[in-house]
């Protein structure tokens, strides 16, 4: 291959990303590189900009990118529509999954899977193969099939919603999965199952970014890197030990370090 090896190797490259919403500056220069096969954890206090970063990766228009760049597999991600990003393999597990009355998860995912296949020039999946694939994936995340026949997220418990997000991830087989606080609201058993689902997706070709407040999740999904997002910037990066340190000390020492600068 003649193309730059490095750019293939680096799946996601965020450079000096700045963004605002309604005149309020939220991201003030984010730099992050994610290689295929890696798991990155992003932690940080409430309101620091974690979900904003996740939403911008997914292409939400409410956020205005005012500077910087995002490259995904050599493509300018910011140029792509949200649906094309998804079709290219970017998946976001929402912090607050949305309800769609009257549309079952099955129907929803069938539409999604076929839209993605069409984009890739593949034929639509027939009902039989689709159901077979679904059966396999329900086992991975141990999700109850009756849940999948109900209206998407409508009346789901907090934990069911999160588990459904991971089920969708398993079905869509993304290259880059961004999990925004998928662990919050999960009981211990569900946490293990969700983590297990994520781990099964892990391969040398895929990457995961987990946004979380709790080091507990990282016992199950062991990250290669941990970043601390504070006030719109990544102020500290390290390995999983950093998460333990945060757990012990809280964010104050980071805040203090940063106001001191």
């Amino acid at each position, binding site marked *: 291959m003649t193309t730059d090896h490095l750019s293939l190797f680096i799946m996601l490259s965020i450079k000096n990303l700045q963004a605002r919403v309604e005149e309020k500056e939220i991201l003030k220069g984010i730099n992050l590189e994610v290689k295929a096969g890696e798991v990155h954890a992003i932690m940080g206090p409430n309101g620091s900009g974690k979900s904003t970063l996740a939403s911008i990766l997914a292409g939400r228009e409410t956020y205005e990118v005012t500077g910087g760049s995002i490259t995904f597999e050599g493509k300018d991600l910011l140029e792509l529509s949200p649906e094309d990003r998804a079709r290219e393999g970017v998946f976001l597990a929402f912090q607050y999954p949305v309800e769609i009355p009257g549309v079952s998860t099955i129907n929803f995912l069938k539409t999604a899977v076929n839209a993605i296949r069409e*984009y890739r020039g593949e034929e639509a999946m027939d009902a039989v193969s689709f159901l077979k694939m679904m059966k396999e994936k329900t086992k991975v995340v141990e999700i109850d099939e009756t849940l999948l026949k109900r209206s998407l997220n409508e009346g789901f418990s907090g934990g069911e919603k999160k588990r459904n997000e991971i089920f969708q991830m398993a079905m869509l087989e993304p290259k880059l999965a961004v999990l925004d606080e998928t662990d919050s609201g999960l009981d211990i058993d569900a946490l293990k199952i969700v983590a297990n689902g994520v781990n099964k997706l892990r391969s040398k070709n895929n990457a995961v970014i987990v946004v979380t407040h709790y080091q507990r999740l990282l016992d199950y999904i062991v990250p290669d890197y941990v970043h601390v997002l504070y006030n719109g910037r990544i102020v500290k990066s390290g390995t999983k030990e950093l998460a333990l340190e945060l757990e012990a000390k809280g964010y104050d020492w980071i805040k203090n370090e940063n106001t001191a600068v």
Partner: protein
Amino acid sequence: MSDSNKILEELTQSDYKYGFVTNIENDSAPKGLSEDTVRFISAKKNEPEWLLEWRLKAFRHWLTMETPTWANVTFPAIDYQDIIYYSAPKQKISLSSLDEIDPELRATFEKLGISLDEQKRLSGVAVDAVIDSVSITTTFKGKLSELGIIFCSMSEAVHEHPELVKKHLGSVVPITDNYFTALNSAVFSDGSFCYIPKGVRCPMELSTYFRINAANTGQFERTLLIADEGSYVSYLEGCTAPMRDENQLHAAVVELIAMEKAEIKYSTVQNWYPGDKNGKGGIYNFVTKRAICAGDHAKISWTQVETGSSITWKYPSVILKGDYSIGEFYSVAVTNNMQQADTGTKMIHIGKNSRSRIVSKGISAGKSQNSYRGLVKVMPRAENARNFSQCDSLLMGDQCGAHTFPYIEVGNPSAIVEHEATTSKIGEDQVFYCNQRGIDTEKAVALIVNGYCKEVLNQLPMEFAVEAQKLLAISLEGSVG
């Protein structure tokens, strides 16, 4: 104007997919309406004297009436002298086989997606196709007649089954009922007639396809459906029209009669030409549909998916005369661009323990106006009558309107009448959620809307439901709110 509104404006220009004109020579009445017109129609159809008298009575009554103005719709006064009241394809229509049909006409059916051959062979749906004013052919007649089921055009019924027609025509919707029923009764051209004998379960869906073809013709069909004791029938009605700049009037009357323990399911997918995006052209759909549960334990269900017409004025109703009778109304009404719809139902409880259920889903986009108007009336003798009504409105964009006019009159204290109503918008977060899964905005809206209408779509027979889903998607193309 905000960005999303601009996109909405740009995108809500989906073309009407059924707007082709068929070139068939027509045999028409001259423009205008007078007693002579009525006589002309009656003579053309070789009608018996009693029917001509019936028509003339209706016409004379109509002359004393005025266009109703209570509906939440506006349109310029209709010039009734500028309409052609009778238009028949020039062809002898007593055909023994489908092959004798004018090829142009056949092609029209094909374009409509109702190839008669196909219908006959594959779907088990009997079709009575009405183009303009004359019913062209009725398939499956042989098979049905073995069971004693009569399914034919109204003109034919007048000759072949005069006693049934004479007895029931106008018995549910009197000629004097309203302005448009009087007009229809005077000039009705054709329509479908159906009779299901005692204890017979009609083994296939019966279907009528209406299409307005000739320019400046009003279509005034008349449908009469009688389900005798303990019988069952499911009836489908589909409508399309070519694109024309002028408005065309469509004033139909449908009467349903269910005897003791009989059940009628009547489903409509109405996709008349809605006019262009500036409101030019389109069909005025002023229809009176009424059913009576004449006997105890009778059941009647109206299901309608209304996506077309520039103006819709329509209230399929059920008179619950029998004890323990059941009336249902399931409706999806979509308006886009400049369309106006004022639609709903009337449930008149007379019988004891009669029950009714109303599920109405209104969807408004563009600059359209969408009104639900419903009456639930419980008569004094209707002991233990029950009604449940659910009226939901979905708004797309901020230039359209949704209105709900529920009227409730309860004359018996044991009755329980419940009414629920909601208004919602398609959330930007819902669309984004779909986008994030690879589903583009068009498809996302279709998906969300179909989900919203699911309870109604579920009532439709399978093939019809699929068609209805596609129609919903087409008529809302680009209407992202």
